């Protein structure tokens, strides 16, 4: 979760759009601690200024703005946004799939649909959260490119190439990025208790592994307090990750 929070470091006064419980906790933790200027919604159309717990609520909200979907789309195309989405499949260059498994014409498994992933990746920084890092999710080739990865972005024209960014991929095992000369996926850090070999084995393509890979940092005592007492008093975070 702290790794999810770290994704937003340095973003400043932009809309943070975390999809899912752990990304949401991460973004709210980031704003409650080191990234206070982030704009965050209640998960629907209100921009809230206070530190809102995750879960059904109702919780008291200090509403500071109105972020209906139409303005989300405008903000997205205007570039003042960083999204953290899920990825059922992701490949070496950061192509993401949330549309379907198998042949698109008649899929083996229909998923939610591409949603805003094509537009997100063409317009502003995108990060991914994968709660089950495995060779089923980290694949050589995704079945339907929803979010656009680096190779395709490079071929999509100057404007998109300049504005495209996959910031980080956070999983239950590690943090990955694309800080390599050919923009292929790199292991940035391994979570405490996970070995480098486990991460490599759970990845279905060749991962760039630097000579020294740090351990993902643990939450500070203050971050732990904010998570436990303020943002997730009922422990919803435990439902999304087992490890």
């Amino acid at each position, binding site marked *: 979760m702290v790794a999810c929070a770290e994704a937003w470091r340095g973003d400043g006064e932009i809309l943070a759009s975390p999809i899912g419980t752990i990304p949401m906790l991460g973004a709210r933790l980031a704003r409650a601690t080191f990234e206070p200027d982030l704009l965050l919604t209640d998960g629907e159309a209100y921009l809230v200024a206070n530190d809102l717990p995750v879960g059904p609520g109702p919780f008291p909200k200090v509403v500071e703005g109105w972020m209906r979907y139409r303005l989300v789309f405008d903000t997205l195309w205007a570039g003042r946004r960083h999204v953290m989405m899920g990825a059922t499949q992701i490949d070496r260059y950061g192509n993401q799939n949330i549309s379907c498994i198998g042949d698109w014409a008649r899929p083996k498994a229909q998923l939610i*649909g591409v949603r805003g992933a094509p*537009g997100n990746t063409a317009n502003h920084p995108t990060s991914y959260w994968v709660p089950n890092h495995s060779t089923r999710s980290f694949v050589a080739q995704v079945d339907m490119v929803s979010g656009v990865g680096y190779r395709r972005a490079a071929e999509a024209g100057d404007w998109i190439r300049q504005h495209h960014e996959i910031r980080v991929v956070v999983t239950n095992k590690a943090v990955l990025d694309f800080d390599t000369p050919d923009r292929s996926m790199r292991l940035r850090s391994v979570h405490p208790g996970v070995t480098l070999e486990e991460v490599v084995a759970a990845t279905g393509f060749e991962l760039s592994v630097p000579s020294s890979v740090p351990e993902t940092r643990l939450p500070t005592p203050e971050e732990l307090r904010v998570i436990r007492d303020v943002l997730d008093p009922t422990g919803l975070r435990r439902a999304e990750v087992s490890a």
Partner: protein
Amino acid sequence: MTAVTATRDKRTTEEEVVAELRDGMTVGIGGWASRRKPMSLVRAILRSPLRDLTLVSYGGPDVGLLCAAGKVAKVVFGFVSLDTIPLEPHFRVARQSGAVEAMELDEGMLQWGLYAAALRLPFLPTRAGIGSDVMAVNPHLRTVRSPYSDGEDLVAMPALALDAALVHVNRADARGNGQVLGPDPYFDDLFCMAARRRFVSCERVVATEDLLREGPVQTLVLNRSMVDGVVEAPGGAHFTSCEPDYGRDEAFQAEYAKAAADAEAWSSFRIRYLDVDEAGYRRAVAGRG
């Protein structure tokens, strides 16, 4: 306050709305996922002999139910979801069995298609879609080069013209002015503006002079030039949410999703809740244990 005489009373019923629809029509459905869907109108279509519809929707149980009933030839969508249950079970079956054709778009492309249709433009340019497989699975989509010095290639998102739009709002008057009291108007105004025939169901019909007692002027998202028919449908969005009048009926939605997973369970769900008129639906919902 001055009373207003309704020059044209557009009040109608679910059955009369459905009688205006034809096989093969392109129908846009407002709301978003499992939020503020015109479910009483959807249920009326389920009871009708209509078929071969093309649906354009930020999809939820509207799409799932119509697919399950064999009403749908094609779905134009960016997602289909029940929100708290991420995947729509009937839509999954329809796609996996090849029962429906699909036009899968980025959410913003869908908005742009509706907006282009609303403004009577052939297309609107966007970057959404470029580089993704949305372009591969929609080979009819074209790009257009900016005529200015940037020379950028953009997707020319074609207008998504609708034969009919169905939306659900909190309040409306008999003349077709529609009011959304919840936090998000979604794209309901665009659905109406993109359509030839526009039908609005509402929780309650109120007098025109009472609209601003319900909420500020910014809540009046539909005006009567955008609406042909008004259906008073209390609970008409059930089981989707219709804030602030009611939230999503999560227990019922869970029952729906569970029933969808099993042919026998679905058959009893259908008999109990769908093979009955709207009053029967409400009684069945109220009477469940």
